[in-house]
């Protein structure tokens, strides 16, 4: 390979040196793709152009392997008059009232979060928040579906605290409540954790923004952080092949987040929208300026003249292709009318946001011709391309697909045939082990690190089934969101697995009393070059598209993450599905936990012996096999409509979705939420084990207040939904009593359920040096323990018992221990 001469590779030079060898293969471009670029340009690409094509035609940006399948979403999507923007925009936008719309989307940041958990996860939050902002919305909440390797694997102890810290660190500092998510452990994610982040935004219907760089003569304004060498993953190969051999080492491939700058960027953009100063806007995420410049001009059919040397740089020695490829965070690209430029700059200055005019929108040379994206670097032309060739005309592949050869055997190995607990005592022990397992235990250790109160509109947040935020204080209008996925189900049957994820998210939204209206997804899979992965992907997409059509709610957008593998083995196919629902008045929301003594417990839906892929099978037998629970989307729809209808007339004091861990897990969570016990009488003739641990879909546990039972039952009969009375809420009993089988005091349940994550992730010696309080020995008597420190009452309360490690850690800094330690300093 010839080394280029010093200086930049200009368009003129590219024309003069058509035969210069270029490192396209190292950049991930195939021979035929490189030839196509030469055809499009009618010459060889410059280094900058080659970098741009290699990024924009990458799997990440072009969706070249998934496009042929994702079309189904558009084809099968039910007609909805709520959709204001859909697939292909930065995020889908759904109208929820005459005045307001919401936008939501989930995206992955998997690989960066494995390399550098804190920054990887933090910038994952930052990226999706800018997508939402670009639609004209104020971001109002985030959620985080997470997947980690085995809970007790040493590397999980590195990855999980970093990821959780990063999501909290960024989201908390942005002032976005975290209202829910998932924490799932499975060895399949060892070495390839999944960090998906959902962001929800709200906008007045008439503030919807577009990315099109319309209006020749308009100014191209880059605002936000300076551009540095962070995140030049894709081009690092180019850099090392064509420039200084050591330069690669200086380039961290994971971006570094600055939430404070993003907060200012949000406020500045919202003020710019309100003042109607923005013609078009696009966030800078993956592929940085390359993506933003090409997509905005391609969307409008215009061209652009960009003076790239105007881009404010952190590192003045950056080359043009690096500036084009940089994924530095906290940047947005705006299109502004020249007459509004000063006003826009004033707004940015008020918020301390750097804003730089870097170019102008240009008209196509002739009618019906595309515009040209022309980039100059200190007066020399380094890019001259039709923008749509980058943004829209990337390669599309129908990759080979094949059912995994082991699937038949896997499906034949059913969990229903595994040994089950035989006695009441064994059943009791099984319950305690299953609820303490990493996937079913209390998530407080994680969710406590997230601010759920900020903005003051959080009506429901974790551990509730769905997050619910009020979006209109006058009317009480709110939206509920849940994100769900089950990689084990999808491994056993990707079509059903995707539908089960959809059904669970739909049900989780419905049990709050909300009406589901829209879907987003994040499809996490292995390598698309592996035909069996491609088959899983195709099946999951087909399942999800069919499911949305059956439920009558459209997919509004989403994200595909391929190449998730641990060594040679792909992760379980993991489609994560987010469902958005609308609540007319959040005051009518239905909580998940038991609220009133004496409420009647009713199980809605039918329980079948469905244990394959269940938490029980995994926890007790390390087993994965068989076929996942049956999906009945008509039943899910009926369930949702019954719950919404009965919630509105006050028939429900709580409702909790049944999913992983089955009825047993639902009962435990509903009891522990507010510390109310329950007496359960299982129906005659059922197998108590199956009834408690089956993961049959389409079920919910509801509590009906006294006096409403008959009306509720009549309504269930009328709507034709199976209903089974299974007990009552009994505050005084203080236990979960499965009549005739076993009983467990709530304190024992809580201890089992709450101790797992602190036990795994709190350092064993959490004391550390206390906040030293210089103390005079003579005064130690005065420092006697304040009474509340002994907390006798607290100790009796299960919540406190559940956190022995924390109690010690907290106590270390408090008055009682300090005097002894601090003596030496007196």
């Amino acid at each position, binding site marked *: 390979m010839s080394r280029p001469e010093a200086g930049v590779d200009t368009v003129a030079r590219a024309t003069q040196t058509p035969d210069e060898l270029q490192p396209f293969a190292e950049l991930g471009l195939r021979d035929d793709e490189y030839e196509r670029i030469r055809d499009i340009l009618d010459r060889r690409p410059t280094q900058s152009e080659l970098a741009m094509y290699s990024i924009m035609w990458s799997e990440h940006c072009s969706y070249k392997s998934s496009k042929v399948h994702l079309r189904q979403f558009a084809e099968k999507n039910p007609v909805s008059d709520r959709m204001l923007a859909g697939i292909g925009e930065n995020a889908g936008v759904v109208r929820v009232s005459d005045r307001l719309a919401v936008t939501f989307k989930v995206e992955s940041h998997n690989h960066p979060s494995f390399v550098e958990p804190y920054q990887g996860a933090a910038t994952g939050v930052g990226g999706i928040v800018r997508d939402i902002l670009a639609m004209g919305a104020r971001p109002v909440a985030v959620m985080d579906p997470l997947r980690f390797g085995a809970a007790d694997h040493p590397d999980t102890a590195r990855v999980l605290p970093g990821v959780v810290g990063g999501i909290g660190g960024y989201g908390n500092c942005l002032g976005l409540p975290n209202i829910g998510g998932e924490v799932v452990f499975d060895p399949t994610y060892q070495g390839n954790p999944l960090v998906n982040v959902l962001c929800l935004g709200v906008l007045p219907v008439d503030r919807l923004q577009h990315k099109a760089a319309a209006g020749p003569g308009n100014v191209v304004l880059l605002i936000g952080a300076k551009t540095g060498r962070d995140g030049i993953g894709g081009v690092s190969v180019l850099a090392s092949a064509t420039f200084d051999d050591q330069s690669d080492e200086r380039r961290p491939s994971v971006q570094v987040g600055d939430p404070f700058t993003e907060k200012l960027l949000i406020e500045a953009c919202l003020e710019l929208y309100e003042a109607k100063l923005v013609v078009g806007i696009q966030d800078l995420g993956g592929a940085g300026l390359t993506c933003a410049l090409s997509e905005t001009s391609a969307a409008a059919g215009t061209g652009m003249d960009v003076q790239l040397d105007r881009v404010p740089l952190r590192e003045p020695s950056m080359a043009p292709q690096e500036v084009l490829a940089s994924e530095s965070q906290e940047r947005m690209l705006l299109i502004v009318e020249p007459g509004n430029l000063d006003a826009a700059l004033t707004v940015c200055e008020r918020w301390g946001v750097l804003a730089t005019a870097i170019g102008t929108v240009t008209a196509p040379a002739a009618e019906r011709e595309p515009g040209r994206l022309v980039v100059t670097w200190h007066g020399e032309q380094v890019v001259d391309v039709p923008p749509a060739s980058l943004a829209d005309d990337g390669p599309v592949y129908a990759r080979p697909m094949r059912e995994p050869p082991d699937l038949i055997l896997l499906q034949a190995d059913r969990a229903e045939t595994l040994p089950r607990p035989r006695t009441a005592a064994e059943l009791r022990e099984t319950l305690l082990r299953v609820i303490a397992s990493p996937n079913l235990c209390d998530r407080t250790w994680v969710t406590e690190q997230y601010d759920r109160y900020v903005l003051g509109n959080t009506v429901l947040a974790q551990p509730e089934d769905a997050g619910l935020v009020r979006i209109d204080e006058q009317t009480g209008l709110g939206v509920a969101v849940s994100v769900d996925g089950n990689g084990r189900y999808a491994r056993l049957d990707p079509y059903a697995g995707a539908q089960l994820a959809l059904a669970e998210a739909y049900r989780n939204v419905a049990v709050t009393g909300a009406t589901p209206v829209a879907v987003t997804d994040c499809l996490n899979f292995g390598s698309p070059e592996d035909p069996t992965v491609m088959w899983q992907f195709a099946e999951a997409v087909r399942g999800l598209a069919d499911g949305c059509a059956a439920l009558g709610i459209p997919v509004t957008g989403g994200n595909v993450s391929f190449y998730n593998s641990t060594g040679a083995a792909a992760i379980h196919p993991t489609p994560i599905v987010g469902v958005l629902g609308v609540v007319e008045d959040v005051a009518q929301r239905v909580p998940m936990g038991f609220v009133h003594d004496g409420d009647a417990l009713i199980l809605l839906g039918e329980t079948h012996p469905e244990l394959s892929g269940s938490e029980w099978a995994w926890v007790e037998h390390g087993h994965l096999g068989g076929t996942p629970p049956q999906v009945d989307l008509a039943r899910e729809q009926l369930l949702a409509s019954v719950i919404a209808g009965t919630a509105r007339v006050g028939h429900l004091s709580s409702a909790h979705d049944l999913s992983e861990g089955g009825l047993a897990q639902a009962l435990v969570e509903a009891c522990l939420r507010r510390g109310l016990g329950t007496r359960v009488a299982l129906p005659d003739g059922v197998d108590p084990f199956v009834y408690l641990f089956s993961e049959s879909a389409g079920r919910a546990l509801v509590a009906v207040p006294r006096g409403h039972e008959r009306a509720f039952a009549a309504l269930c009969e009328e709507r034709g939904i199976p209903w089974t009375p299974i007990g009552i809420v009994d505050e005084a009993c203080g236990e979960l009593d499965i009549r005739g089988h076993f009983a467990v005091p709530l304190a024992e349940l809580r201890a089992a359920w709450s101790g797992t994550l602190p036990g795994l992730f709190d350092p064993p010696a959490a004391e550390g040096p206390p906040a030293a309080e210089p103390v005079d020995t003579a005064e130690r008597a005065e420092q006697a323990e304040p009474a509340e420190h002994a907390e006798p009452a607290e100790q009796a309360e299960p919540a406190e018992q559940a956190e022995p490690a924390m109690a010690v850690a*907290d106590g270390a800094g408090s008055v009682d221990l300090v005097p002894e330690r601090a003596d030496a300093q007196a």
Partner: protein
Amino acid sequence: MSARVGVVTFPGSLDDGDAVRAVRLAGAEAVRLWHAEPRLHQVDAVILPGGFSYGDYLRCGAIARFAPVMELITMAARDGLPVLGICNGFQILCEAHLLPGALTRNQHLHFRNRDQRVRIESATTAWTNAYDEGQELLLPVKNGEGCYVADRATLDELEAEGRIVARYTGGNPNGSQRDIAAIRNEAGNVVGIMPHPEHAVAELTGPSTDGLGFFTSLLKHLTGVAR
């Protein structure tokens, strides 16, 4: 004429809207104050809200203290203007030397958000006179740097003068010395509190409505002063 309560927005303030809502629910008029504007717009009291002013990159509250509006607030506070600093606002008050001590990294090193019980220790301040001494409240706490520290003499002085306004009960969420959740200045017009009373003003969105008393206390205080 309803009381006018200023709520300052610094770059990075996050709970300013919540403070405004709480003021409104208590029956007062909220007035937005901008960090860069050295004007107090004739407010009767000021709230420094929670958040991460200036990203809290140097030290929590260390830069906000130098904001143009803070100069006026510091002077006015010394003349008796009621000032409530919540979370980041408490940190700013300490940095501005309107309150003694400092708020340091939580001892367990994590950001922690939980519903926390606190006990009112002093019901004589401009911001707590609606409570009874010994009354227990349930308020959200959410911070990464809420561990209150001061030297021994200062702590003793705070105790002796009844300037500890609230203490954590039922577990200390961040390792604060002597379980301190809130303190006041000598005059009782300036209060800094780590938990968030403005997030406990409505059943629907908070763990309780226990926090509303901070804002109604102010109105009582202002009426008393006016008389």
